[in-house]
């Protein structure tokens, strides 16, 4: 376990250090905007806000409402590409 957690820690560290994490983040954001995921999520936010009331909305409220839906709405192509890149990185730099 600790070996695994150590390995994870190493991998995460490597991801961040080499800038791969940032690159992956930007890539994901761009792809999600491109495919309309962002607009869908914003529309969902509007509904949540209308439900909760404009004045009393907090970041946590939104996050709790949005994240599950967001995870579900990511298109398969985007998901596949991202997974592929992560695996490639691990194969190259880990182990």
């Amino acid at each position, binding site marked *: 376990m600790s070996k695994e957690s150590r*390995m994870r820690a190493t991998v*995460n560290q490597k*991801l961040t250090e080499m800038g791969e994490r940032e690159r992956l983040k930007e890539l994901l954001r761009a792809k999600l905007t491109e495919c309309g995921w*962002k607009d869908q999520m914003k529309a969902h936010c509007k509904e949540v806000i209308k439900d909760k009331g404009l004045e009393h909305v*907090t970041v946590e409220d*939104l*996050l709790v409402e949005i994240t599950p839906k967001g995870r579900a709405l990511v298109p398969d192509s985007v998901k596949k590409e991202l997974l592929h890149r992560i*695996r490639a990185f691990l194969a190259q730099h880990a182990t």
Partner: protein
Amino acid sequence: MKMEDMPLSGPDNTRLEALVHDIYSELVEDACLGLCFEVHRAVKQGCFFLDETDQESMKEFEIVDQPGVDIFGQVYNQWKNKECECPNCKRLIAASRFAPHLEKCLGMGRNSSRIANRRLASNNNMSKSESDQEDNDDLNDNDWSYGAEKKAKKRKSDKNQNSPRRSKSLKHKNGELGSSVGSEPYKYNYNPGISYETLGPDEVRSLLTTQCGVISEHTKKMCTRSQRCPQHTDEQRRAVRVFLLGPSAPSLPDGDPVGESNIFDIPDGQTLMGRLQWEDSPDISPTDSASSKASTNHSDSRRPKKKKTPSLGLNSGGGGGSLSGGSSSSQSNISLPTKKKRPKLSAPSITSIYDDLN
């Protein structure tokens, strides 16, 4: 979620896959968080719901989807067939042509001044050259070629026909016609031409002293270009002069020593010698030209006003054979101001030459 096989051992593989998915989930959550922050900030700043208004306004600005009409509900070629009345000329102009028409009608805009100037220039040139053709004899002799070359040279740039500069250049040309005309490289598009049949002998002679004079095959007119016009050779010019004025009257003022020496073998009588006098004045001395004033009359008409420097050189060189009408003319101009513009020849000097020849 079975992905491609990785070249790893079993348990490691699954662990690695799990790791990959975990990393992926982290990234997605990160994106969601970013979105939440963005939305929350927009809500708190009050700009989140800006694109939504009340229901009535929404209906008013809905996208229109009818045929013949654009999405705003406007007919797009509504003004195509309309006609507008021009406030200047009171004509009905099509809407799409209205702006260019106004430009020309009111005389404003970039092109209208250009067109007007060009029109003025061509009109003036036409009228000027036409009037020149009537003016045969007299001091406007130079205007023949001047008119032709002016039209060709200043076709597009001639803006002010009545400027003082124009008359100044005219006077300038009286004395210096040779240099300016001779140096012109342009090909004239318009050559008024003269019909030799209508001219008297004096006029013909006067023309031939200043102009090329070669008779065109097609139009039967004499070329009005300078003595050095590139379209005709000296042979042609000489032939024309022989044809028009008699066999012994070649009047090419150009320095052509080889050709010209032949001419002096022909003299027949006093008249011919008188005619030849102008072209051959080998020794131009003030005294000679002064004394020639009395004797020479008629030969002056054929003097070319152009040639100065080249013929001067020839004069000094060859006494008998050089064409020196130009030089003689220049000299005589100095000595004989009383005559018309035609410079007088020095007769006594020439007569002496002929005495030698004879």
